[in-house]
Protein backbone atom coordinates (compact mmCIF):
# COMPACT_ATOMS: atom_id res chain seq x y z
CA UNK A 1 0.00 0.00 0.00
CA UNK A 2 1.34 3.43 -0.79
CA UNK A 3 1.76 6.21 1.70
CA UNK A 4 -1.16 8.25 0.46
CA UNK A 5 -3.59 5.40 1.08
CA UNK A 6 -2.22 4.84 4.58
CA UNK A 7 -2.54 8.49 5.50
CA UNK A 8 -6.06 8.63 4.04
CA UNK A 9 -7.18 5.67 6.14
CA UNK A 10 -5.60 7.19 9.22
CA UNK A 11 -7.24 10.53 8.49
CA UNK A 12 -10.69 9.01 8.01
CA UNK A 13 -10.32 6.93 11.16
CA UNK A 14 -9.32 9.91 13.25
CA UNK A 15 -12.09 12.01 11.77
CA UNK A 16 -14.70 9.49 12.81
CA UNK A 17 -13.16 8.98 16.24
CA UNK A 18 -12.44 12.54 17.20
CA UNK A 19 -14.74 14.46 14.85
CA UNK A 20 -17.95 14.01 16.86
CA UNK A 21 -16.18 15.14 20.00
CA UNK A 22 -14.97 18.31 18.29
CA UNK A 23 -18.45 19.02 16.91
CA UNK A 24 -19.96 18.62 20.39
CA UNK A 25 -17.42 20.95 21.92
CA UNK A 26 -18.02 23.52 19.18
CA UNK A 27 -21.79 23.26 19.60
CA UNK A 28 -21.42 23.70 23.34
CA UNK A 29 -19.57 26.96 22.84
CA UNK A 30 -22.50 28.41 20.90
CA UNK A 31 -24.13 31.68 21.94
CA UNK A 32 -27.41 30.65 20.31
CA UNK A 33 -30.38 28.97 21.99
CA UNK A 34 -30.59 25.69 20.12
CA UNK A 35 -28.23 22.80 19.59
CA UNK A 36 -26.62 23.49 16.25
CA UNK A 37 -23.43 23.15 14.30
CA UNK A 38 -21.73 25.36 13.26
CA UNK A 39 -22.31 27.37 16.47
CA UNK A 40 -23.95 30.77 16.34
CA UNK A 41 -21.41 33.02 18.04
CA UNK A 42 -19.16 32.07 20.92
CA UNK A 43 -20.06 31.90 24.59
CA UNK A 44 -19.42 29.87 27.74
CA UNK A 45 -22.95 30.41 29.02
CA UNK A 46 -24.08 26.83 28.36
CA UNK A 47 -21.22 25.50 30.42
CA UNK A 48 -22.41 27.72 33.25
CA UNK A 49 -26.00 26.57 32.69
CA UNK A 50 -24.97 22.94 33.22
CA UNK A 51 -24.10 23.68 36.82
CA UNK A 52 -27.39 25.50 37.41
CA UNK A 53 -29.70 22.67 36.39
CA UNK A 54 -30.79 20.83 39.57
CA UNK A 55 -31.48 17.53 37.89
CA UNK A 56 -27.97 17.47 36.40
CA UNK A 57 -26.46 17.97 39.84
CA UNK A 58 -28.57 15.16 41.27
CA UNK A 59 -27.93 12.73 38.46
CA UNK A 60 -24.22 13.53 38.46
CA UNK A 61 -24.23 12.50 42.14
CA UNK A 62 -26.02 9.25 41.28
CA UNK A 63 -23.60 8.45 38.47
CA UNK A 64 -20.58 9.24 40.64
CA UNK A 65 -21.90 7.07 43.44
CA UNK A 66 -22.57 4.15 41.08
CA UNK A 67 -19.21 4.50 39.35
CA UNK A 68 -17.20 4.66 42.59
CA UNK A 69 -19.04 2.17 44.78
CA UNK A 70 -20.13 -0.17 41.99
CA UNK A 71 -16.51 -0.46 40.86
CA UNK A 72 -15.22 -0.89 44.42
CA UNK A 73 -17.74 -3.66 45.01
CA UNK A 74 -16.79 -5.30 41.72
CA UNK A 75 -13.12 -5.21 42.77
CA UNK A 76 -14.00 -6.57 46.19
CA UNK A 77 -15.55 -9.58 44.43
CA UNK A 78 -13.25 -9.67 41.42
CA UNK A 79 -9.83 -9.64 43.14
CA UNK A 80 -10.45 -12.82 45.17
CA UNK A 81 -12.03 -14.39 42.07
CA UNK A 82 -8.94 -13.61 39.96
CA UNK A 83 -6.70 -14.92 42.72
CA UNK A 84 -8.65 -18.15 43.01
CA UNK A 85 -8.68 -18.69 39.24
CA UNK A 86 -4.94 -18.01 39.01
CA UNK A 87 -3.83 -20.09 41.99
CA UNK A 88 -6.05 -23.10 42.22
CA UNK A 89 -7.09 -25.65 39.66
CA UNK A 90 -10.72 -24.61 39.83
CA UNK A 91 -13.00 -27.12 38.09
CA UNK A 92 -14.79 -25.36 35.26
CA UNK A 93 -12.53 -22.29 35.39
CA UNK A 94 -13.28 -21.60 31.73
CA UNK A 95 -17.02 -21.65 32.36
CA UNK A 96 -16.62 -19.35 35.37
CA UNK A 97 -14.65 -16.84 33.30
CA UNK A 98 -17.31 -16.96 30.61
CA UNK A 99 -20.10 -16.33 33.11
CA UNK A 100 -18.15 -13.53 34.73
CA UNK A 101 -17.59 -11.99 31.28
CA UNK A 102 -21.19 -12.33 30.16
CA UNK A 103 -22.18 -8.72 30.97
CA UNK A 104 -19.73 -7.63 28.25
CA UNK A 105 -21.04 -10.17 25.77
CA UNK A 106 -24.78 -9.82 26.33
CA UNK A 107 -26.15 -6.54 24.93
CA UNK A 108 -26.82 -4.05 27.73
CA UNK A 109 -30.36 -3.47 26.58
CA UNK A 110 -31.18 -7.13 27.26
CA UNK A 111 -29.48 -7.02 30.66
CA UNK A 112 -31.45 -3.90 31.56
CA UNK A 113 -34.77 -5.34 30.41
CA UNK A 114 -34.10 -8.64 32.17
CA UNK A 115 -33.22 -6.91 35.44
CA UNK A 116 -36.33 -4.80 35.25
CA UNK A 117 -38.66 -7.66 34.38
CA UNK A 118 -37.23 -10.35 36.62
CA UNK A 119 -35.62 -8.47 39.50
CA UNK A 120 -37.33 -5.14 40.05
CA UNK A 121 -40.93 -6.04 39.14
CA UNK A 122 -41.34 -9.41 40.89
CA UNK A 123 -39.26 -8.71 44.02
CA UNK A 124 -40.08 -5.07 44.48
CA UNK A 125 -36.43 -4.20 44.92
CA UNK A 126 -35.88 -0.46 44.76
CA UNK A 127 -34.46 0.76 41.47
CA UNK A 128 -31.57 2.33 43.41
CA UNK A 129 -30.40 -1.08 44.57
CA UNK A 130 -31.09 -2.58 41.14
CA UNK A 131 -28.96 0.12 39.48
CA UNK A 132 -26.18 -0.51 41.95
CA UNK A 133 -26.26 -4.27 41.35
CA UNK A 134 -26.39 -3.79 37.59
CA UNK A 135 -23.39 -1.46 37.56
CA UNK A 136 -21.42 -3.78 39.83
CA UNK A 137 -22.13 -6.70 37.50
CA UNK A 138 -21.22 -4.66 34.43
CA UNK A 139 -17.84 -3.72 35.86
CA UNK A 140 -17.02 -7.15 37.28
CA UNK A 141 -15.70 -8.59 33.99
CA UNK A 142 -13.19 -5.76 33.68
CA UNK A 143 -12.12 -6.21 37.29
CA UNK A 144 -11.53 -9.94 36.85
CA UNK A 145 -9.78 -9.67 33.48
CA UNK A 146 -7.46 -6.79 34.29
CA UNK A 147 -6.54 -8.05 37.75
CA UNK A 148 -5.99 -11.58 36.38
CA UNK A 149 -3.55 -10.19 33.85
CA UNK A 150 -1.43 -8.60 36.56
CA UNK A 151 -1.70 -11.71 38.74
CA UNK A 152 -0.19 -13.86 36.01
CA UNK A 153 3.32 -12.51 36.52
CA UNK A 154 3.21 -13.13 40.24
CA UNK A 155 5.09 -16.25 41.22
CA UNK A 156 3.66 -18.59 43.82
CA UNK A 157 7.00 -18.98 45.58
CA UNK A 158 6.86 -15.38 46.83
CA UNK A 159 3.76 -16.30 48.82
CA UNK A 160 5.39 -19.51 49.97
CA UNK A 161 8.40 -17.56 51.17
CA UNK A 162 6.02 -15.33 53.14
CA UNK A 163 4.36 -18.41 54.66
CA UNK A 164 7.74 -19.65 55.87
CA UNK A 165 8.52 -16.23 57.35
CA UNK A 166 5.42 -16.28 59.52
CA UNK A 167 2.47 -15.26 57.36
CA UNK A 168 -0.85 -17.04 57.13
CA UNK A 169 -2.44 -17.50 53.70
CA UNK A 170 -4.50 -14.36 54.29
CA UNK A 171 -1.68 -12.13 55.52
CA UNK A 172 0.55 -13.38 52.68
CA UNK A 173 -2.19 -12.28 50.27
CA UNK A 174 -2.49 -8.86 51.91
CA UNK A 175 1.22 -8.20 52.37
CA UNK A 176 2.67 -9.80 49.25
CA UNK A 177 0.01 -10.29 46.57
CA UNK A 178 -1.94 -7.04 46.90
CA UNK A 179 1.05 -4.65 46.80
CA UNK A 180 2.32 -6.39 43.69
CA UNK A 181 -0.96 -6.18 41.76
CA UNK A 182 -1.86 -2.65 42.82
CA UNK A 183 -1.17 -1.31 39.32
CA UNK A 184 -3.64 -3.77 37.85
CA UNK A 185 -6.19 -3.00 40.56
CA UNK A 186 -5.95 0.73 39.88
CA UNK A 187 -6.21 0.15 36.15
CA UNK A 188 -9.30 -2.01 36.70
CA UNK A 189 -10.78 0.69 38.91
CA UNK A 190 -10.32 3.37 36.29
CA UNK A 191 -11.64 1.22 33.48
CA UNK A 192 -14.61 0.22 35.62
CA UNK A 193 -15.27 3.80 36.66
CA UNK A 194 -15.32 5.10 33.10
CA UNK A 195 -17.46 2.18 31.89
CA UNK A 196 -20.00 2.64 34.65
CA UNK A 197 -20.08 6.42 34.37
CA UNK A 198 -20.84 6.35 30.65
CA UNK A 199 -23.23 3.42 30.76
CA UNK A 200 -26.60 3.96 29.00
CA UNK A 201 -28.61 0.87 27.95
CA UNK A 202 -28.86 -0.91 31.32
CA UNK A 203 -29.46 2.30 33.24
CA UNK A 204 -32.19 3.24 30.78
CA UNK A 205 -34.49 0.50 32.11
CA UNK A 206 -33.62 1.06 35.74
CA UNK A 207 -34.02 4.82 35.90
CA UNK A 208 -37.20 6.50 36.86
CA UNK A 209 -38.44 9.84 38.11
CA UNK A 210 -36.21 10.96 40.95
CA UNK A 211 -33.42 8.54 40.24
CA UNK A 212 -31.46 8.85 37.04
CA UNK A 213 -27.89 8.49 36.02
CA UNK A 214 -26.30 11.42 34.24
CA UNK A 215 -26.47 10.03 30.67
CA UNK A 216 -30.13 9.09 31.11
CA UNK A 217 -30.89 12.50 32.56
CA UNK A 218 -29.25 14.11 29.55
CA UNK A 219 -31.48 12.14 27.20
CA UNK A 220 -34.55 13.14 29.22
CA UNK A 221 -33.46 16.77 29.24
CA UNK A 222 -32.91 16.80 25.49
CA UNK A 223 -36.41 15.54 24.83
CA UNK A 224 -37.78 18.72 26.36
CA UNK A 225 -35.06 21.37 25.99
CA UNK A 226 -33.11 21.30 22.78
CA UNK A 227 -30.42 23.72 23.94
CA UNK A 228 -26.60 23.47 23.84
CA UNK A 229 -26.28 22.73 27.58
CA UNK A 230 -26.44 19.01 26.79
CA UNK A 231 -23.51 19.45 24.44
CA UNK A 232 -21.63 21.31 27.16
CA UNK A 233 -22.35 18.54 29.65
CA UNK A 234 -21.25 15.91 27.13
CA UNK A 235 -18.02 17.78 26.57
CA UNK A 236 -17.43 18.03 30.32
CA UNK A 237 -18.03 14.35 31.02
CA UNK A 238 -15.91 13.31 28.03
CA UNK A 239 -13.18 15.60 29.35
CA UNK A 240 -13.46 13.94 32.77
CA UNK A 241 -13.02 10.48 31.25
CA UNK A 242 -10.13 11.58 29.08
CA UNK A 243 -8.40 13.28 32.01
CA UNK A 244 -8.68 10.13 34.13
CA UNK A 245 -7.29 7.92 31.35
CA UNK A 246 -4.42 10.30 30.65
CA UNK A 247 -3.50 10.53 34.31
CA UNK A 248 -3.63 6.75 34.57
CA UNK A 249 -1.45 6.29 31.51
CA UNK A 250 1.06 8.80 32.79
CA UNK A 251 1.36 7.43 36.32
CA UNK A 252 0.67 3.74 35.82
CA UNK A 253 1.32 2.86 32.22
CA UNK A 254 -2.37 2.05 32.04
CA UNK A 255 -2.18 0.51 28.55
CA UNK A 256 -0.01 -2.32 29.91
CA UNK A 257 -3.00 -3.72 31.78
CA UNK A 258 -5.84 -3.29 29.31
Amino acid at each position, binding site marked *: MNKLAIWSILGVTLTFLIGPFLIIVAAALSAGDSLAFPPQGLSLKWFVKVFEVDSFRASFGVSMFLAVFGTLTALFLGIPASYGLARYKVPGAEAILLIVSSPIIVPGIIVGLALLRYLVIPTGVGIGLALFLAHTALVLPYAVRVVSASMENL*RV*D*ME*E*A*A*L*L*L*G*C*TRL*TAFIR*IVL*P*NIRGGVLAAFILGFVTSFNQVPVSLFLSGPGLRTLPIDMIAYMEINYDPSVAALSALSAALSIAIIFAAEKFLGFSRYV
Partner: protein
Amino acid sequence: MSDFVTLDHLTLTYGKTVAVSDLSLGIAKGELIALLGPSGCGKTTTMRAIAGLLTPKSGTITIDGRDVTRLAPAKREVGLVFQSYALFPHLSVYDNVAFGLRLRGEPHLDTKVRAGLTTVGLGDFPNRQPSDLSGGQQQRVALARSLVMEPKVLLLDEPLSNLDARLRLEMRMELQRVQRETGITMVFVTHDQTEAMALADRIVLMRNGAIEQIGTPEQIYAAPKTAFAADFVGFETILPAGDGIGGLAWRPSAVVLGRGPHTGTIRGVSFAGERREYVLDTPLGLVKVDTPVAEPLRRIGQSVQFDLPEERAVRVDAFT
Protein backbone atom coordinates in the same frame (compact mmCIF):
# COMPACT_ATOMS: atom_id res chain seq x y z
CA MET B 1 18.28 -42.35 67.64
CA SER B 2 19.56 -38.85 68.23
CA ASP B 3 18.53 -37.45 64.88
CA PHE B 4 17.63 -33.78 64.77
CA VAL B 5 15.37 -34.09 61.75
CA THR B 6 13.56 -37.34 61.10
CA LEU B 7 11.51 -38.31 58.09
CA ASP B 8 9.64 -41.48 58.95
CA HIS B 9 7.97 -43.57 56.23
CA LEU B 10 7.03 -40.46 54.31
CA THR B 11 4.73 -40.78 51.29
CA LEU B 12 4.11 -37.64 49.26
CA THR B 13 1.62 -37.27 46.44
CA TYR B 14 0.39 -34.68 43.97
CA GLY B 15 -3.20 -35.69 43.41
CA LYS B 16 -2.92 -39.30 42.35
CA THR B 17 0.73 -39.12 41.35
CA VAL B 18 3.04 -40.56 43.97
CA ALA B 19 6.15 -38.38 44.06
CA VAL B 20 7.87 -39.97 47.04
CA SER B 21 6.99 -43.32 48.57
CA ASP B 22 7.85 -44.60 52.04
CA LEU B 23 10.98 -42.53 52.53
CA SER B 24 12.81 -42.61 55.86
CA LEU B 25 15.81 -40.45 56.66
CA GLY B 26 17.57 -39.16 59.76
CA ILE B 27 19.60 -35.96 59.77
CA ALA B 28 21.96 -35.06 62.62
CA LYS B 29 22.14 -31.58 64.15
CA GLY B 30 24.50 -29.32 62.24
CA GLU B 31 24.75 -31.65 59.32
CA LEU B 32 24.89 -30.45 55.71
CA ILE B 33 22.83 -32.85 53.62
CA ALA B 34 22.43 -32.91 49.87
CA LEU B 35 19.33 -34.40 48.28
CA LEU B 36 20.78 -35.43 44.94
CA GLY B 37 19.07 -36.88 41.90
CA PRO B 38 17.74 -36.24 38.41
CA SER B 39 14.61 -34.14 37.89
CA GLY B 40 11.48 -35.97 38.94
CA CYS B 41 13.25 -38.08 41.58
CA GLY B 42 11.27 -36.47 44.41
CA LYS B 43 14.07 -34.42 45.98
CA THR B 44 12.29 -31.07 45.72
CA THR B 45 9.01 -32.63 46.86
CA THR B 46 10.77 -34.00 49.95
CA MET B 47 12.21 -30.57 50.70
CA ARG B 48 8.80 -28.92 50.30
CA ALA B 49 7.34 -31.44 52.73
CA ILE B 50 9.98 -30.56 55.34
CA ALA B 51 9.11 -26.88 54.83
CA GLY B 52 5.41 -27.59 55.26
CA LEU B 53 4.41 -26.46 51.77
CA LEU B 54 3.10 -29.96 51.09
CA THR B 55 1.20 -32.17 53.52
CA PRO B 56 2.35 -35.79 53.48
CA LYS B 57 -0.15 -38.47 52.55
CA SER B 58 1.34 -40.62 55.27
CA GLY B 59 4.38 -40.73 57.52
CA THR B 60 5.75 -38.19 59.99
CA ILE B 61 8.29 -35.40 60.05
CA THR B 62 10.02 -34.56 63.31
CA ILE B 63 12.26 -31.56 63.91
CA ASP B 64 14.16 -31.26 67.20
CA GLY B 65 11.91 -33.79 68.89
CA ARG B 66 8.67 -32.12 67.81
CA ASP B 67 6.23 -33.70 65.39
CA VAL B 68 5.68 -31.01 62.75
CA THR B 69 3.88 -33.16 60.16
CA ARG B 70 0.62 -31.16 60.33
CA LEU B 71 2.12 -27.86 61.45
CA ALA B 72 1.84 -24.67 59.36
CA PRO B 73 5.10 -23.64 57.61
CA ALA B 74 5.38 -20.56 59.80
CA LYS B 75 5.45 -22.60 63.01
CA ARG B 76 8.16 -25.06 61.98
CA GLU B 77 11.20 -22.80 62.41
CA VAL B 78 12.40 -23.84 58.98
CA GLY B 79 13.96 -21.47 56.43
CA LEU B 80 13.84 -21.98 52.69
CA VAL B 81 15.96 -20.28 50.05
CA PHE B 82 14.06 -20.67 46.79
CA GLN B 83 15.73 -21.40 43.50
CA SER B 84 14.11 -18.25 42.11
CA TYR B 85 15.06 -16.45 45.39
CA ALA B 86 11.42 -15.30 45.69
CA LEU B 87 12.34 -11.85 46.99
CA PHE B 88 9.46 -9.44 47.53
CA PRO B 89 9.84 -6.99 44.63
CA HIS B 90 7.92 -4.18 46.31
CA LEU B 91 10.20 -4.11 49.36
CA SER B 92 13.76 -2.86 49.76
CA VAL B 93 16.60 -5.23 50.61
CA TYR B 94 16.32 -4.14 54.25
CA ASP B 95 12.56 -4.69 54.37
CA ASN B 96 12.90 -8.08 52.70
CA VAL B 97 15.29 -9.22 55.41
CA ALA B 98 13.20 -7.58 58.14
CA PHE B 99 9.93 -9.11 56.90
CA GLY B 100 9.83 -12.19 59.12
CA LEU B 101 11.30 -10.45 62.16
CA ARG B 102 8.63 -7.73 61.95
CA LEU B 103 5.86 -10.32 61.87
CA ARG B 104 7.39 -11.89 64.93
CA GLY B 105 7.60 -8.52 66.71
CA GLU B 106 11.36 -8.81 67.16
CA PRO B 107 12.62 -6.25 69.71
CA HIS B 108 16.17 -6.01 68.28
CA LEU B 109 14.99 -5.76 64.70
CA ASP B 110 17.46 -3.24 63.32
CA THR B 111 20.51 -4.87 64.89
CA LYS B 112 19.54 -8.29 63.58
CA VAL B 113 18.72 -7.12 60.07
CA ARG B 114 22.01 -5.22 59.76
CA ALA B 115 23.96 -8.15 61.16
CA GLY B 116 22.21 -10.46 58.70
CA LEU B 117 23.05 -8.23 55.75
CA THR B 118 26.66 -7.95 56.89
CA THR B 119 26.93 -11.73 57.21
CA VAL B 120 26.13 -12.15 53.53
CA GLY B 121 28.29 -9.19 52.50
CA LEU B 122 25.47 -6.81 51.62
CA GLY B 123 25.82 -4.40 54.53
CA ASP B 124 26.13 -1.46 52.13
CA PHE B 125 22.94 -2.08 50.16
CA PRO B 126 20.00 -1.91 52.61
CA ASN B 127 18.04 0.62 50.55
CA ARG B 128 18.36 -1.00 47.15
CA GLN B 129 15.38 -2.65 45.49
CA PRO B 130 15.78 -6.36 44.67
CA SER B 131 15.51 -5.59 40.94
CA ASP B 132 18.66 -3.43 41.19
CA LEU B 133 20.75 -6.39 42.37
CA SER B 134 22.56 -9.09 40.42
CA GLY B 135 21.39 -12.70 40.66
CA GLY B 136 24.14 -13.56 43.12
CA GLN B 137 23.28 -10.59 45.34
CA GLN B 138 19.59 -11.44 45.24
CA GLN B 139 20.41 -14.91 46.42
CA ARG B 140 22.39 -13.47 49.33
CA VAL B 141 19.40 -11.37 50.30
CA ALA B 142 17.24 -14.49 50.22
CA LEU B 143 19.81 -16.28 52.35
CA ALA B 144 19.95 -13.41 54.86
CA ARG B 145 16.15 -13.24 54.96
CA SER B 146 16.04 -16.87 56.06
CA LEU B 147 19.06 -16.75 58.36
CA VAL B 148 17.91 -13.81 60.49
CA MET B 149 14.95 -15.91 61.55
CA GLU B 150 17.42 -18.32 63.15
CA PRO B 151 15.66 -21.39 61.81
CA LYS B 152 16.40 -24.85 63.12
CA VAL B 153 16.77 -26.15 59.60
CA LEU B 154 17.73 -24.22 56.49
CA LEU B 155 16.54 -25.64 53.18
CA LEU B 156 18.09 -24.54 49.90
CA ASP B 157 16.61 -25.34 46.48
CA GLU B 158 19.33 -25.66 43.82
CA PRO B 159 21.39 -22.93 45.52
CA LEU B 160 24.18 -22.87 42.96
CA SER B 161 22.52 -23.71 39.68
CA ASN B 162 21.58 -20.16 38.65
CA LEU B 163 25.07 -18.78 39.26
CA ASP B 164 28.02 -18.60 36.92
CA ALA B 165 31.18 -20.60 37.66
CA ARG B 166 32.99 -17.92 39.67
CA LEU B 167 29.96 -16.96 41.77
CA ARG B 168 29.24 -20.61 42.31
CA LEU B 169 32.57 -21.14 44.01
CA GLU B 170 32.02 -17.99 46.06
CA MET B 171 28.54 -19.09 47.16
CA ARG B 172 29.81 -22.55 47.99
CA MET B 173 32.39 -21.10 50.37
CA GLU B 174 29.78 -18.72 51.72
CA LEU B 175 27.38 -21.55 52.54
CA GLN B 176 30.12 -23.59 54.18
CA ARG B 177 31.20 -20.58 56.23
CA VAL B 178 27.65 -19.80 57.36
CA GLN B 179 27.17 -23.43 58.26
CA ARG B 180 30.41 -23.52 60.24
CA GLU B 181 29.68 -20.26 62.06
CA THR B 182 26.04 -20.88 62.90
CA GLY B 183 26.10 -24.67 63.18
CA ILE B 184 22.74 -24.68 61.43
CA THR B 185 21.37 -27.90 59.93
CA MET B 186 21.18 -27.51 56.18
CA VAL B 187 19.44 -29.55 53.54
CA PHE B 188 19.98 -28.60 49.93
CA VAL B 189 18.52 -29.99 46.76
CA THR B 190 20.62 -30.40 43.64
CA HIS B 191 20.76 -32.36 40.41
CA ASP B 192 24.50 -31.76 40.10
CA GLN B 193 26.72 -34.42 41.63
CA THR B 194 29.82 -32.16 41.74
CA GLU B 195 27.84 -29.58 43.75
CA ALA B 196 26.65 -32.25 46.13
CA MET B 197 30.16 -33.69 46.52
CA ALA B 198 31.72 -30.28 47.06
CA LEU B 199 29.31 -29.09 49.73
CA ALA B 200 27.63 -31.90 51.59
CA ASP B 201 28.65 -33.85 54.65
CA ARG B 202 26.34 -36.58 53.47
CA ILE B 203 24.60 -37.21 50.17
CA VAL B 204 21.16 -38.72 49.83
CA LEU B 205 20.94 -40.00 46.28
CA MET B 206 17.32 -40.30 45.16
CA ARG B 207 15.64 -42.04 42.27
CA ASN B 208 11.95 -42.44 41.39
CA GLY B 209 10.76 -41.17 44.76
CA ALA B 210 12.96 -43.39 46.86
CA ILE B 211 16.45 -43.30 48.34
CA GLU B 212 18.98 -45.10 46.18
CA GLN B 213 21.99 -44.66 48.43
CA ILE B 214 23.09 -42.59 51.41
CA GLY B 215 26.71 -41.90 52.19
CA THR B 216 29.52 -39.41 52.51
CA PRO B 217 30.72 -37.95 49.22
CA GLU B 218 33.79 -40.20 49.47
CA GLN B 219 31.68 -43.32 49.96
CA ILE B 220 29.37 -42.57 47.08
CA TYR B 221 32.17 -41.50 44.80
CA ALA B 222 34.32 -44.55 45.49
CA ALA B 223 31.70 -47.20 46.10
CA PRO B 224 28.36 -46.64 44.43
CA LYS B 225 26.11 -49.54 45.31
CA THR B 226 23.92 -49.65 42.26
CA ALA B 227 24.32 -49.15 38.54
CA PHE B 228 22.18 -46.00 38.79
CA ALA B 229 24.37 -44.57 41.54
CA ALA B 230 27.51 -45.50 39.62
CA ASP B 231 26.22 -43.81 36.48
CA PHE B 232 25.27 -40.70 38.45
CA VAL B 233 28.74 -40.25 39.93
CA GLY B 234 30.65 -40.68 36.70
CA PHE B 235 31.09 -44.38 36.09
CA GLU B 236 30.35 -44.18 32.39
CA THR B 237 30.84 -47.81 31.43
CA ILE B 238 28.65 -50.33 33.23
CA LEU B 239 28.51 -53.95 32.09
CA PRO B 240 26.96 -57.13 33.49
CA ALA B 241 29.45 -59.00 35.65
CA GLY B 242 30.82 -62.32 34.38
CA ASP B 243 29.04 -64.29 37.10
CA GLY B 244 25.66 -62.95 35.99
CA ILE B 245 24.94 -61.19 39.32
CA GLY B 246 25.03 -57.41 39.36
CA GLY B 247 27.50 -55.51 37.22
CA LEU B 248 30.88 -53.88 36.93
CA ALA B 249 31.40 -50.15 36.47
CA TRP B 250 34.42 -48.22 35.18
CA ARG B 251 35.23 -44.55 35.22
CA PRO B 252 36.64 -43.25 31.93
CA SER B 253 40.06 -43.07 33.58
CA ALA B 254 39.94 -46.77 34.56
CA VAL B 255 39.63 -47.98 30.98
CA VAL B 256 42.96 -48.81 29.31
CA LEU B 257 43.36 -47.59 25.75
CA GLY B 258 45.83 -48.98 23.20
CA ARG B 259 46.01 -52.60 24.32
CA GLY B 260 43.72 -55.32 25.55
CA PRO B 261 41.29 -57.94 24.33
CA HIS B 262 38.54 -55.64 23.05
CA THR B 263 38.41 -53.53 19.89
CA GLY B 264 36.38 -50.40 19.23
CA THR B 265 36.10 -47.48 16.82
CA ILE B 266 36.65 -43.91 17.97
CA ARG B 267 33.44 -41.94 17.55
CA GLY B 268 34.32 -38.77 19.38
CA VAL B 269 37.31 -36.94 20.83
CA SER B 270 37.30 -33.94 23.09
CA PHE B 271 40.11 -32.06 24.72
CA ALA B 272 39.57 -31.38 28.43
CA GLY B 273 42.73 -29.71 29.66
CA GLU B 274 44.93 -32.31 31.23
CA ARG B 275 43.02 -35.20 29.75
CA ARG B 276 41.55 -36.14 26.42
CA GLU B 277 38.16 -37.83 26.35
CA TYR B 278 37.20 -40.46 23.79
CA VAL B 279 33.93 -42.17 23.01
CA LEU B 280 34.38 -45.66 21.56
CA ASP B 281 31.81 -47.59 19.60
CA THR B 282 32.28 -51.22 20.58
CA PRO B 283 30.41 -54.53 20.48
CA LEU B 284 29.81 -53.95 24.23
CA GLY B 285 28.10 -50.63 23.57
CA LEU B 286 29.51 -47.11 23.91
CA VAL B 287 32.60 -46.94 26.14
CA LYS B 288 34.02 -43.67 27.47
CA VAL B 289 37.75 -43.43 28.02
CA ASP B 290 40.07 -40.63 28.94
CA THR B 291 43.83 -40.52 28.68
CA PRO B 292 46.52 -38.01 29.62
CA VAL B 293 47.07 -35.52 26.79
CA ALA B 294 50.72 -36.65 26.67
CA GLU B 295 49.56 -39.87 25.01
CA PRO B 296 49.31 -39.82 21.21
CA LEU B 297 46.09 -38.38 19.76
CA ARG B 298 43.75 -40.88 18.15
CA ARG B 299 41.49 -39.74 15.34
CA ILE B 300 37.77 -40.28 14.78
CA GLY B 301 37.17 -43.46 12.77
CA GLN B 302 40.39 -45.06 13.95
CA SER B 303 40.12 -48.60 15.31
CA VAL B 304 41.77 -49.19 18.71
CA GLN B 305 42.21 -51.94 21.21
CA PHE B 306 41.17 -51.40 24.82
CA ASP B 307 40.91 -53.24 28.10
CA LEU B 308 38.36 -53.14 30.93
CA PRO B 309 40.52 -54.41 33.83
CA GLU B 310 38.36 -56.04 36.48
CA GLU B 311 40.64 -54.90 39.33
CA ARG B 312 39.91 -51.26 38.41
CA ALA B 313 36.14 -51.72 38.30
CA VAL B 314 33.56 -51.17 41.04
CA ARG B 315 31.07 -53.92 41.67
CA VAL B 316 27.45 -52.73 41.72
CA ASP B 317 24.37 -54.55 42.96
CA ALA B 318 21.36 -53.81 40.89
CA PHE B 319 21.93 -53.83 37.17
CA THR B 320 19.40 -51.91 35.16
